[in-house]
């Protein structure tokens, strides 16, 4: 298996129209091995026959519930399970009971949401290397190049190496490019602590980071302060 789209997927939902739509959405996205089941009995049969790589499972089925079905599947295979649920109440069970569901979506959902979640689950389960590689791209800001995989910043006047903390900071900010990251989140990401212990330290590290990536550190263009909230990195030349 070279591509997530080759994964065998089993879609279990008691509403035929919804089966059809989910199948349709996933087909359009390029998934080729799709099987649908309408009840537990069918699902068990298909599961042992096709040995799916991932299961999309409705919580409420006519002849049983998805939670029990998942436990059965888990005794046979480690295939990840994405739950579809039509009740808020399920959310608490899915979150709280540690059922080992890989993710869940509450109905109604947008096709995009389903695709992204499924992708994430499949990548995590079958292509962890792909995931890692994708997470460390090289960023370009006018004259600055940030290479997170090597932790190096290249500018016209030379190369700078990021310290461990600066790396974590920059990584978090770049992950959320264009969006504000709160000071709290930065502290949690870098030190695993609350803001009030590291407020000043954070400011010092941001200053050092600016010295490395900004052409003019006292007038930052990329790494901006959002008063009261946190910081964000802006820039449109991403590769």
């Amino acid at each position, binding site marked *: 298996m070279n591509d997530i789209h080759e994964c065998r997927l089993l879609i279990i939902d008691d509403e035929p129209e919804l089966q059809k739509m989910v199948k349709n959405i996933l087909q359009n996205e390029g998934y080729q091995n799709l099987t649908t089941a309408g009840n537990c009995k069918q699902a068990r049969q298909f599961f042992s026959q096709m040995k799916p790589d991932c299961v999309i499972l409705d919580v409420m089925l006519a002849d049983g519930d998805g939670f029990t079905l998942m436990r059965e599947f888990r005794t046979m295979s480690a295939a990840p399970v994405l739950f579809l649920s039509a*009740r*808020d109440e399920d959310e608490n069970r899915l979150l709280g009971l540690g059922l080992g569901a890989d993710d869940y979506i509450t109905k*109604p959902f947008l096709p995009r949401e389903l695709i992204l979640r499924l992708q994430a689950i499949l990548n995590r389960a079958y292509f962890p290397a792909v995931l890692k590689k994708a997470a460390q791209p090289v960023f370009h800001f006018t004259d600055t190049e940030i290479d997170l995989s090597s932790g190096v910043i290249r500018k016209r006047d030379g190369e700078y190496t990021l310290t461990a903390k600066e790396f974590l900071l920059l990584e978090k900010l770049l992950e959320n490019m264009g969006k504000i990251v709160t000071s709290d989140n930065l502290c949690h990401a870098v030190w695993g602590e609350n803001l009030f212990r590291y407020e000043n330290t954070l400011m010092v590290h941001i200053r050092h980071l600016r010295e490395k990536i900004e052409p003019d550190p006292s007038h930052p263009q990329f790494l901006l302060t*959002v008063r*009261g909230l946190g910081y964000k990195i802006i820039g449109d030349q991403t590769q």
Partner: protein
Amino acid sequence: MKSTLRIFIRYIVSAVGIVIILLVLNLFVLLGWLIQSKVENPVYYSIRDFSDSLALDQGEFSISESSLQKFHKVYQWAMLLDETGKIIWSESLPPDVPHEYSLSDVASFTRWYLNDYPVRVWQHPNGLLVLGSAKDSTWKHEIEFSESIVSKMPAWISFGLTLNGIAALLLSLLFGLGLFRSIRTMATGIENLSENKPVTLPESGLLGELAIKINQTSRQLTKQEKALKKRDNARSAWIAGISHDIRTPLSLVMGYASQLEGDPNLPLSEQEQAGVIRLQSEKIKDLINNLNLASKLEYDMQPFEEKTLYPAELVRGVVTDIINSRIGEHHSIEFIAEDKIEKLKLVGDEDLLRRAIANLVLNSIQHNADGCDISVEIKKESATCSIIVSDNGVGLTQEKLDGVASQRDFIPDNQSHGLGLVIVKQIIQAHNGTVEFKANSPSGCSVILKLPILLSR
């Protein structure tokens, strides 16, 4: 329980009080009687005065007319005996009175009666003066105490009074205890009733009838509560069921609309139309979620995940998420945090609190489509944390503010503000906090959330 004891003490005090009042009353009656007897014999003519007015004048005893008059008002007859016991002077002497007396006769009548006439005697310079009253007019009795008894009299009187007091106290305690017991049972019953516990009191005894009524009330309350709970459950389950049933068809509407929206083979206008369907379905989805949450909060069915959290971090996160989502592009959103607010802690459900604050900001954005300035402020006020969401937009009319503030049920009125604010109120109330709505000048409105904070020791 305290009140029962108070009733008991009150009872004892009043019992003892009654005894004291009775004693005093009796004293007054005695006094009144004494005064009354004085009034009945107003001209008490003393034998001494009479003796003084009886004088020996040239071998003849004479007495003035006025003295004699006074004498007759009180006495009936008089005589003067000489040393040998013979009458040497007399006045209105009745025939059945002897004219000569031996020493033993004198000793006898001096103390008691003379032929049933009550008499008084007095030492006159010329002999023994004897005054007699009418028969059956006076009751004579000898009073004789030993000196030691008289000297112990004050002690005896005070002992008697004390004994009276103690007896009253003990008796009232004895009788009160029974009453106290039954009142205590009653009080416990009423207490349980107020705490919504089922009550079954023994229906006998002094207050049995009262106990029967209390038991009846308890049964009725239990019944009502059951019915109420059943109805609430039914309502909540109904809403949950409806929303569940809507979700699946809505998934199809949203899914296909979204696919059509992104279908490059369709003309642009139709893609846009599909986009409208998708957007409206998302609104229905929000509505269902809100309705469900509101009904669950209303009937205490929302699981409450309490943990210690930092409100400043939470609010900052909510504001950041909203800015990042670019929902309010025409709106400036500002976050103001007081110094040293970062360490402030409170206990609550993070998701619900986030939702409450997000609802307020989103509400401001929604009601001011043309843009406005929104500020979210967090500060500490003694034992509360205030989170103030304020805007300078169109605001709410006072009428609406009052409406939102006073709305008790989660069922929204027909105003357009929907469930958002109701949910905010429910969430904050579930955290033992308060919500205030205020109009801003010149325009806009503020919503102030006050939550109790965790005091650090």
